[in-house]
């Protein structure tokens, strides 16, 4: 396996970034307009981690456009990867692990599609994928690391080693990954896209720097003054952001630190559908939750409002 030069070509990536508009102007738009910036065949990197701060509203809007030929990457891939594969939107996933968590067992969709040769699955270690985004965020073609050496994972993604010019030791030259698009969900941003995250930052700040196009949703749009009051909390610079959408509950039923807890019972219903009907369980779910609701508010209305309030109460309890 060899890596496509597009993924690590730092010069091309830099020129793409240099051409990007960086004006400190209004970035607010709609989910539909944001999702329209994703082209068929793009490499789309997804922020958050597993069922935490997943940009589900953006993924919802993206899948409604019925894209084709996408590659999705994420440090730990949850069922948004299953959606994209079953919907025919993605034919390649790049991640270190796929599933929801111990109680839900192996991903039956990952198994079915990979074992039948219908899905390319590129596996990296968790840190190696993180360093791929970080190398890109730093604008360099690779980062030296001590991880993944000696393992069979070195052959999967086409990793190379490099001899350290100072010590002569063998290091893993973790290749940069410059995604076409990053999808992120944050706690708050001003209308210019300066974004702040509460709690664990996952890899979002690196994604925002690594990708050519950054689409971001925020739980809350705050004033310019509010951001300037706590500039130390800003982790995503506005000039990196191309489209910003105000979406409360933008990760729901995944969690958003301090705002709302995840809904494991909902994951179980989703997985039960797959246990009963295989990929058709995912298709049915997409029909009900992604294609049928015409707005994100309609999507949220499919969830019990009392449950959402309870998820918010649990989140407050767990973070105070």
């Amino acid at each position: 396996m060899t890596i496509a030069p597009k993924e690590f070509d730092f010069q091309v990536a830099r020129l793409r970034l240099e051409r990007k508009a960086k004006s400190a102007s209004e970035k607010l738009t709609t989910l539909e307009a944001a999702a329209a910036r994703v082209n068929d065949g793009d490499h789309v990197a997804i922020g958050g981690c597993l069922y935490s701060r997943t940009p589900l509203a953006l993924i919802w809007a993206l899948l409604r456009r019925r894209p084709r030929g996408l590659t999705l990457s994420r440090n730990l891939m949850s069922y948004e990867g299953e959606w994209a594969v079953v919907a025919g939107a993605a034919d390649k996933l790049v991640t270190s692990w796929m599933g929801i968590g111990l109680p839900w067992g192996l991903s039956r969709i990952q198994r079915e599609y990979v074992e039948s040769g219908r899905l390319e699955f590129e596996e990296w270690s968790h840190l190696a994928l993180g360093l791929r985004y970080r190398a890109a965020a730093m604008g360099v073609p690779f980062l030296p690391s001590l991880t993944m050496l000696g393992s069979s994972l070195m052959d999967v993604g086409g990793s190379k080693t490099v001899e350290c010019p100072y010590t002569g030791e063998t290091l893993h030259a973790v290749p940069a990954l410059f995604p076409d698009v990053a999808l992120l969900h944050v706690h708050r941003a001003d209308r210019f896209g300066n974004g702040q995250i509460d709690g664990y930052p996952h890899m979002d700040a690196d994604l925002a720097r690594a990708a050519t196009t950054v689409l971001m949703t925020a739980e809350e749009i705050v004033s310019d003054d509010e951001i300037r009051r706590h500039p130390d909390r800003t982790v995503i610079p506005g000039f990196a952001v191309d489209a910003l959408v105000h979406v409360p509950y933008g990760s729901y039923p995944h969690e958003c630190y301090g705002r709302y807890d995840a809904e494991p019972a909902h994951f179980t219903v989703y997985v039960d559908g797959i246990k009963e009907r295989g990929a058709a369980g995912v298709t049915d779910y997409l029909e009900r939750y992604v294609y049928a609701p015409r707005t994100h508010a309609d999507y949220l209305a499919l969830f019990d409002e009392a449950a959402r309030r309870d998820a918010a109460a649990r989140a407050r309890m767990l973070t105070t």
Partner: protein
Amino acid sequence: MTCTANELLAVMGARALRDGITVFAGVGAPLMATALAQRTHAPTLTMMMEGGILGPSFKPGDLPISTNEMRAAYHAQMLPGISDAFLLAQRGFLDVGFIGGAQIDQYGNVNTSVIGGYDRPKVRLPGSGGANDIISLCREVMILTVHEKRRFSERVEFVTSPGYLSGGDSRRKSGLLFGGVSRIVTTLGVFDFEPESRRMRLTALHPGIAVADVQANTGFEVLVSADLATTEPPTDKELDILRMLDPKRQFIG
């Protein structure tokens, strides 16, 4: 008191953790082992979790299902982000790491990726997650697992997380200058690795288990230490703490 397989693993894992160290642990038995050690003999032990969480506290009865959720971060001391958490391990700050294993060979190599060819596998497993990083970067790694013949096979066909590779100094030669698997704790006994060959070696049996039981449940020849010991069964105090942490028995079974 009788105990479950996961309780046994958590207790044996906890006893192997010295006070004052730093531990990289995931959810399930590793979390239970680390939390138990902190509440018994290791009050100055610091835990780190894969979600980028340092020094979590855990709320009894509300333990995390994943390492990337608020229950894992409950009353934590620092939330540095995932890559930066792993980089603390690469720098050398993490003494002991825990990983699990779908398939483990006699050199401690772990496969959690594929059974039967990478591109068209017979069984696609979830993948490395942080296991490869933990086994590559921590000073030593402990594996906690149920002991089943299908788990312990002579060779893993895919090395997701490298133990001692093909034995001897092959791990170091691959560029993995630090660390290694120090101990495997199973439901039958405790193993280390013979220093020369780096092959798995039985060092202690749990009460009531015979060497023949271990051999019958292992897919390769089991080396047995000259001073084979028997572990002390979990105490009531240890089990009480585990059951206080997990009253709904979500993780201890």
